[in-house]
């Protein structure tokens, strides 16, 4: 799914693609704006994008949802931290114990086939209706992606680097610090990126379906009260926020992979 590294394309082509992409987005937004204002689509159920943005700014200035945003962010952050930590350890264990890995392989391959949200009711029963089922859901959704990518990264450490480590008679710690970790870093970072993405999806989804507070809950609440301006404002904020995080992570990831490719070329 990775695209060609951007540096292989001529500069003008790259800029043309970016310009076209922005044009497509702008066109879609304008079309929605016109459609809603001119009444092609029902303006009650779908308010114009400009109003969505205004509503989002208003919500941000008033700060009425500060606690909900904070709750969602903290739940997702705890889930990401736990998932990255345990996912990494899990990946290392799987790498070190091939026998265990062979047994668990079918589970790892089909883990994401199961709609993990069906676990949410069980987690509520286990942990009570508070923030912890959300953290647990985010953790469960993210941890396997982290483990699989860690495993993938460790497997792809070039054999020549490991031979070099042996030749230099490095200790176990030095080998990990100077060879294994840097060489597998891009893949581990992909795992971290996925952990962030999945944790947010799980936490917000859980809040949306059943909870008493948080970003997802407020969107569902606004929907149930026919408060469309607030609902669209919250959605806009959410999409802008998650979109920005994803974009930053994606850029950092591309950079890591490109550096690795360049190193291998030289």
């Amino acid at each position, binding site marked *: 799914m990775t695209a060609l590294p951007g540096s292989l394309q001529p500069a003008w082509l790259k800029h043309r693609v970016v310009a076209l992409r922005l044009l497509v987005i702008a066109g879609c937004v304008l079309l929605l704006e016109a459609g809603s204002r001119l009444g092609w689509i029902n303006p009650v159920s*779908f308010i114009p994008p400009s109003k969505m943005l205004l509503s989002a700014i208003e919500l941000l200035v008033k700060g009425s949802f500060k606690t909900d945003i904070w709750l969602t962010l903290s739940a997702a952050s705890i889930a990401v931290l736990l998932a990255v930590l345990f996912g990494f350890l899990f990946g290392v264990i799987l790498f070190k114990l*091939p026998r265990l890995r062979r047994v668990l392989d*079918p589970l790892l391959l089909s883990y994401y*086939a199961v*709609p993990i949200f*069906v676990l949410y009711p*069980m987690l509520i029963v286990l942990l009570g209706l508070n923030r912890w089922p959300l953290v647990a859901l985010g953790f469960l959704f993210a941890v396997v992606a982290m483990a699989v990518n860690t495993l993938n990264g460790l497997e792809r450490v070039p054999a020549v680097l490991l031979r070099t480590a042996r030749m230099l008679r490095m200790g176990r710690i030095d080998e990990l610090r100077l060879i294994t970790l840097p060489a597998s870093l891009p893949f581990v970072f992909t795992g971290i990126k996925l952990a962030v993405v999945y944790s947010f999806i799980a936490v917000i989804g859980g809040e949306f*379906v059943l909870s008493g507070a948080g970003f997802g809950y407020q969107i*569902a609440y606004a929907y149930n009260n026919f408060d469309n301006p607030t609902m669209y404002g919250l959605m806009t904020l959410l999409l802008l926020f998650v979109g920005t995080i994803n974009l930053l992570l994606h850029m950092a990831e591309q950079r890591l992979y490109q550096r690795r490719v360049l190193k291998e070329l030289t």
Partner: protein
Amino acid sequence: MNSPNALPTAAQRWGDVVLLLLGILGCWALASWFFGPTILPGPFSTFKQVRIEVSDAEFADHLTETGLAFGAALCISLFGGMAIGLLLGARRLAGDVFEPLLLALYSIPKIALYPVVLLIFGLGISAKIAFGAIHGIIPMVIFTMTAIRNLRPVHLRSIRAHRLTAWQAAVHVLIPAALPEIVAGLRIGFSLTLLGTLLGEMFASQRGIGHLLMRAIDRNDAPTIVALALMLFLFATAVSLGLLQWDKKLRRAA
């Protein structure tokens, strides 16, 4: 660096499967014993509960509703995703323009947008279908597009040499050549479509398996929740592993 490379024999593989199942059942029984059977019913009582659920008269209706919504959503994801993927894969520039947008759509929490789908389609089965299709179509598009882009040039040259029309090229060359990737995309698309449909049923719905789950939460009915979750687990895992086998077979043939 020895055992993972050596292919395990069939007997070993079955041994692993048995080991895995025993491990899962053991962990489950242990957790049930730890939390108490009223909070987390153990494997044995859950199997009994599954039989009670399935024999319930209402269950068939709910299952049909979910099955219909899921089937329709999967069809839209599969064929719509393939069509868009073919288009974006064949047109290099269009593909470059849309790929990051698709990846961005893939990674946002779409559940938060469900109210918009509900407002557009109204309460009912069409909203569930739409929501399932929104989840499933994106991986189908991405996988098909990537496969078409990475085809060997000889395929494209033969299309030109035979002066195939766009339709003929798609049916006789592009889709067969990209089939392994399409199956891989279908594996992800399948699970995401199921997720989307169920999520749609868990929120503002009166019918379907997702609704049964939510109702069981309201009644604090742990055995039903675990029984339904188990059925979904088994269904999703079985189909996913089946598609995986198909994918492997196609790749070996290619």
